[in-house]
């Protein structure tokens, strides 16, 4: 910092100093809030963070020079942004857990809403869980094979106009609002073909939503597989279809599974199409092929619409269950793909 001979060494800000600056910033802010009319936790955090940023940057500039000061400033800014981004996630989770805990009991997971009015205590979401699981399973069973095949066609075989047309229509499908998908199945399948409300009809509507997501995400993942692997396989005299099945798909599998899970998570939370196609029911209907069924988001929608605490509590627990269902599915998928990968590597 003085006029001494130039050296490669320069001062560094010890971690302790950074901690001290943070503590001081917090202290100053608390004092400020105590002495002035300023109030509120969000404001306090914001002011403390700003003071910390300014103080740390000023200190670092004096001791470490301007480049390091900028580095510290941006690092702190990015870290704060990260923490900020976590706030909605954890507040949604935390609030749902807090509100849903009231009815998170055995009865909720074993009973339906049959002959339970809005004001009645008790009742449960068993019928809705059954509905959600069956509808999403039907949707996945229909969409994943078709979607994967379409993606494989576009990436591996499609050339020229047909592939471009398919890609265009997939893009159009991606933009279909979910209620339109529900209306389509309602008018075509239920009213047109007179099939009646059912979980399967809901599966059809959800497939319309899920299919384009699967196609697009799988397509991107298949494109990421380097051509050199395909060429290596061709050069061994392995036919194209076997190359795709045994080399390309396994290589892209983790990404494809992630895409599928995102799609599953998305359709699991759909309400409008299910309302229009499965109609909703208060009692348990184990068959997705006949009669109205409920689902978790639909139950949340209907229960939260009643201005009774008993009903609203059930809605919160249903919402919590919905999050848990998606989470469990996600974990299962991860576990499955991980095991299959290790198995392949370990085989000798």
């Amino acid at each position, binding site marked *: 910092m003085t006029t001494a001979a130039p050296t490669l060494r320069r001062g560094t800000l010890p971690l302790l100093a950074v901690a001290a600056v943070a503590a001081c910033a917090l202290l100053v802010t608390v004092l400020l809030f105590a002495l002035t009319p300023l109030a509120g936790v969000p404001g306090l955090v914001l002011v403390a963070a700003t003071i910390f940023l300014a103080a740390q940057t000023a200190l670092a500039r004096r001791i470490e020079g301007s480049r390091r000061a900028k580095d510290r400033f941006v690092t702190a800014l990015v870290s704060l942004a990260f923490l900020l981004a976590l706030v909605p996630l954890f507040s949604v989770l935390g609030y749902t857990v807090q509100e849903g805990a009231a009815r998170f009991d055995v009865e909720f997971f074993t009973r339906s809403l049959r002959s339970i009015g809005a004001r009645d205590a008790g009742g449960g979401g068993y019928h809705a869980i059954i509905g959600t699981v069956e509808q999403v399973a039907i949707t996945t069973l229909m969409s994943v094979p078709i979607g994967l095949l379409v993606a494989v066609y576009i990436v591996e075989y499609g050339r020229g106009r047909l592939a471009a047309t398919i890609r265009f229509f997939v893009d159009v499908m991606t933009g279909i609002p979910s209620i339109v998908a529900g209306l389509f199945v309602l008018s075509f399948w239920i009213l047109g073909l007179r099939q009646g409300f059912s979980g399967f009809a809901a599966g059809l509507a959800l497939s319309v939503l899920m299919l384009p997501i699967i196609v697009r995400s799988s397509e991107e993942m298949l494109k990421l597989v*380097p051509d*050199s692997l395909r*060429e290596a396989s*061709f050069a*061994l*005299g392995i036919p194209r279809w076997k190359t795709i099945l045994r080399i390309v798909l396994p*290589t892209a599998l983790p990404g494809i599974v992630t895409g599928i899970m995102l799609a599953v998570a998305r359709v699991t939370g759909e309400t409008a199409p299910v309302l229009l196609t499965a109609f909703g029911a208060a009692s348990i209907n184990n068959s997705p092929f006949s009669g109205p069924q409920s689902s978790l988001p639909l139950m949340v929608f209907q229960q939260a619409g009643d201005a009774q605490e008993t009903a609203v509590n059930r809605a919160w627990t249903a919402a919590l269950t919905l999050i848990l269902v998606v989470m469990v599915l996600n974990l299962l998928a991860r576990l499955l793909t991980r095991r299959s*990968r290790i198995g*392949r590597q370990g*085989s000798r």
Partner: protein
Amino acid sequence: MAKRIEAVDLDAYYGGFRAIEGVTLTIEPKSITALIGPSGCGKSTFLRTINRMHEVLPGARVTGQLLLDDEDVYGPGVDPVGVRRAIGMVFQRPNPFPTMSIYDNVVAGLRLNGVKKKGDLDDAAEQSLRSANLWNEVKDRLGKPGAGLSGGQQQRLCIARAVAVEPQVLLMDEPCSALDPISTLAIEDLMTELKDRYTIIIVTHNMQQAARVSDRTGFFTIDGPGTPGRLVEIDETPKIFSNPSEKRTEDYITGRFG
């Protein structure tokens, strides 16, 4: 098992662009032939026409004849998959299958072509890895991922994978350009050993390498951008490097090209 290769007036196209023109040459079995020439002269394209890998790219096609022991590779009714089974290929960058173990990589060609017996696969894996000089380095970790090996080891793994299906011809497209000198030496030694059983054709930018390993050398060049590549001459390697018949060859190997 090694077979003779004969190209007769071979042209290769990328869409409307003619990449190589009028290549006529003969490659004897159990020999190493090096193809040299400036970038873009079509030597790699020619190599890829031999096992019909050229046509994998959209719009690419080939005219002319390419004979493998008098059988035209481009004849009617010839299955490219069968051609590729008979003519193996090693690429510029090592490309082991990332989801597979070392063992699975080596036997991939056999297994995906229907060989199921574990005994056969085990034998083939050991034999191929031995002929690729890799057995001693990996025999204790055959179950580990192939992508975890070093670059030179990966390239030898790819060579083992290529020879595991017992091809008659082995094509190598700049197999050492991504490797250090020691790995390069290992692969050159390997080529000399494999020469007893295979017809080997190697594309290389390294003229010392061509001079070291090959029996015959072919020189490709282009007259200018946008013109097709041609085979200028092909001859015994010592002759090409000491007394070539063509002025252009001499200019290239002495560094006076361009």
